[in-house]
């Protein structure tokens, strides 16, 4: 039992099942993230990690129940979930390549209501985390390097002032130094209280930051454990730390 179990979860997923045609890619999966918690999902290729994230954000059809901040959001659509503060950085970044950094960031703030100052504050926060984006403000997203694009993808998600940030393999295809820089930034954001749900291949890096880990295999959760306990499971430690 984790220490977080007593706190009302930020998001609770119950019995989530998703199919691609006849193939059941996700089977009765359950997970939760507490407010301000950093949770990592690990698993081999084809385990259903991306499917799980896409099912949570309603990018694919699924059955089951999703409760966010105590509200049943199972039947909401993707854009409505984004309005509640569930923001996902998709695998492959999902940037709009023909648009400038400025326009991509503007789109991130799309659902922000209230005074313009709010958006400006978010922008300053993004620039303080990723100063390079300020230098590239009028450059098209497609003309930037992979690392800068990933910074922009995370920055754009932060522009939406998320309550829960979901990331699908943000370090994919990046140099180790850049991946480490981005994941460290996520760690800093989590320390400020942002809930994070991360799918990541670079397990050692992700496990340094996460408080809890789910191990996914063949479309279902095989294990859930606090990060510090993973080393006591020798088989898992050998698999994910070496």
């Amino acid at each position, binding site marked *: 039992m984790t220490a977080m179990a007593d706190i009302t979860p930020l998001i609770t997923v119950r019995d989530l099942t998703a199919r691609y045609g006849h193939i059941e890619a996700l089977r009765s999966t359950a997970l939760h993230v507490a407010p301000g918690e950093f949770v990592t999902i690990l698993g081999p290729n084809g385990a259903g990690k991306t499917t799980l994230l896409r099912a949570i*954000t309603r*990018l694919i059809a699924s059955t089951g129940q999703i409760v966010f901040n105590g509200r049943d959001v199972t039947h909401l659509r993707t*854009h409505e979930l984004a309005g509640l503060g569930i923001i996902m950085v998709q695998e492959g970044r999902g940037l*709009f390549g*023909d648009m400038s950094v400025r326009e991509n960031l503007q789109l991130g703030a*799309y659902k922000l209501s209230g005074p313009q100052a709010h958006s400006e504050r978010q922008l300053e926060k993004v620039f303080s985390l990723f100063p390079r984006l300020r230098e590239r403000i009028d450059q098209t997203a497609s003309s*930037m390097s992979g690392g800068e694009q990933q910074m922009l993808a995370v920055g754009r998600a932060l522009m939406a002032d998320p309550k829960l940030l979901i990331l699908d393999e943000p370090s994919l295809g990046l140099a180790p130094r850049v991946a480490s820089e981005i994941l460290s930034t996520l760690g800093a954001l989590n320390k400020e209280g942002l809930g994070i749900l991360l799918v990541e291949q670079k397990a050692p890096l992700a496990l340094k930051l996460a408080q809890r880990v789910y191990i996914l295999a063949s479309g279902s959760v095989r294990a859930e454990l606090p990060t510090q306990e993973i080393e006591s499971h020798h088989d898992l430690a050998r698999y994910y730390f070496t």
Partner: protein
Amino acid sequence: MTSLAITSPKPAARLDRFSLGLLGAGALLFAAVLVYGGYLLTVMQLAMIYGIFCLGLNFFMGYTGQASFGQNAFACIGGYGSAILCVQYNWEPALALIASMGVAGIAALVIGYPTLRLRGHYLAMATFALGLITYDISVQWTSLTQGYMGYAGIPPLGIGSLTVEDERLKLLCLGGLLLVGFWISQRLRDSRFGRGLRAISGSENGAAALGIRISRFKLIAFVIAGLYASAAGSLFAHTVGFISPEVFGPQMVIVTFTMLYIGGVGTLIGPVVGAIVASLLPEIFRSTGRFQDIAYALVLLLMLIYAPKGLSALGALFRPRKDKGEA
């Protein structure tokens, strides 16, 4: 510190030098036609009308990335709306144009709501069917449309005692309306709404994940395209003074697609450039006699091969490349 104005309502995009050059060349051509007059006045008038049509089509196909082969349906509503209201009910042409746009907008809303649930080829086929159905209605419903006879004697554009009958004045008026259409298009493209449309064109899932309501945005883009098409249909009726079903038939789809792709689909000035170039090219080859169509087709092919993103995108060749960072 200088504000980066991330939430500024001002347009983010500015026309680059190449685009300004193309527009300048278009303006010079426009002025030359205005001075020399003759048959080219009519050609340029039609180019202006098609330019307005293509500005709308660009909203749906270029910015939003959706396929519609049926925008001629809304031009048909505009054309016949103006013709019927002015010839049979003696409406003022300007009021008839606005009323027809209203009908076309409502039609686009009603038709678009169920149709835009389709994607890709299915949407293309559904919209193509819409164009064919409208064409068929304009042929068959003779009590309303007078069938193949069409409508003649449609009054020129004007309001009250002010009528635009002089051919040069007509061209100036159409050029002014095209500029208004262009200005609206630019403002919308660079607005929060326009960025949302372009995001949908980039990735529907990506846009939805940022909170953009895809179905509503597509529908609004479809309605805007319908309004532009209707205005173009009405302007055709008031400029030429005669309409028949063939004017708004499938041929119109081919012509406007050619214009949009020559100019540059999804670009700001592409629809205007494409409409002018595709209207004037056949006239340039007129001296080749029976080889006119072949020469025109060859030039179109060369353009599509060497400028696949359209003439207005050629400016990218002259821009200095920015190096990617090391990360």
